[in-house]
């Protein structure tokens, strides 16, 4: 039982670190400190996962008396942590205003895939609706890959996920779709 909840936690760690890396690169690409801040927020999430997972790994090792597997799992956790650290360092550059030589923004084209954050305003078209109801992906070409509500993160939301005002949507798509999605989260 512990093993299964542990694997679930490690898969969650995957979602967190992949998003951190994608957000960090986007923050650099767009020179956007708000996106970079989300990387730092996810790092806290990762820290919590790290602590929980460490304890579970020790429990699994004791239950199954399998030291080799436990060492492997610790290495896996360590690798995820390293990826999270690398993403954090990149985000930190943006937060500190050290933009890398203007190489990034200059390279951004309409056809470029970006990740952006969108805050849902009260009374906006998406407020109180689900992603499916407004066919967000079809209409804007942007896919919502995560939602942050308060301190809570939800990864890979489904079409029937209700959206509330104050939600922070993390969306991936072509730069051309950004204004379209912006419209859906802004009070008209």
């Amino acid at each position, binding site marked *: 039982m512990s093993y*299964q909840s542990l*694997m*679930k936690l*490690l*898969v969650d760690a*995957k979602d967190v*670190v*992949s998003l951190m*890396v*994608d957000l*960090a*690169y986007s923050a*650099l690409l767009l020179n956007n400190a708000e996106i970079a801040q989300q990387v730092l927020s996810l790092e806290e999430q990762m820290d919590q996962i790290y602590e929980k997972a460490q304890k579970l790994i020790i429990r699994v090792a004791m239950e199954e008396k399998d030291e*080799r*597997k436990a*060492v*492997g*799992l610790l*290495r*896996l956790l*360590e*690798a*995820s942590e*390293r*990826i999270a*650290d*690398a*993403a954090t*360092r*990149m985000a930190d*550059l943006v937060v500190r205003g*050290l*933009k*890398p*030589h203007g*190489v*990034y923004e*200059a*390279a951004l084209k309409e056809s470029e895939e970006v990740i952006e954050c969108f805050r849902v305003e009260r009374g906006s078209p998406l407020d109180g609706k689900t992603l499916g109801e407004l066919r967000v992906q079809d209409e804007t070409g942007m896919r919502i890959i995560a939602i942050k509500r308060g301190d809570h993160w939800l990864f890979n939301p489904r079409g029937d996920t209700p959206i509330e005002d104050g939600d922070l949507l993390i969306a991936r798509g072509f730069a051309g779709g950004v204004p379209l999605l912006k419209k859906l989260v802004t009070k008209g």
Partner: protein
Amino acid sequence: MEKIRPVREVLRELKDLSSFAIDLAYSSLLTGDVELAEKVLEIEEDIGELYRELQLGVLMAADDLESAKSLIPLLSVAYSAREIGEASADIAKLVLSKTIPPAGELLEKTAERLFCVVIKDDSPLVGKNLGELDWGANVIAVKRQRRWFLGPEDDFVLREGDCLIVEAPRTEEVKVKELAKGEFV
């Protein structure tokens, strides 16, 4: 003389490949797919070379103290990308050494999986472009000799020897592999 590519281009490849390495590494972990894990190690090497190329480009671009200072963050980004590649390779090595059993139960929920196939010379796929294929699979990357093509477009024409990273429902996996080998009737 060795030709230096624009830093921007190298950086973009570093970004795309390091992000891709994470996906492949965790996918191989879920399924215990050894071939996929080996690809991650290849990517780690490719990232190492890009890292070196970027270092050279940055050194060449600095012509005074001010420009050198403004280039430091670039090196930092490249270093982070290399870290990501190395950490992904560490994950892949756990798969190769069979230290961690694949998370089978979790996989049942995800109907799609990633795997790699190499196009053999008598495969009916040779000379076809990706848009022509109607095989229920999504090609997310192609490695041709030393070069990766991530997210190839519909007009990408397949050649013998191409290594495809494919995302497909588990039910389609055998069919896709047979097509690539040319054994499909």
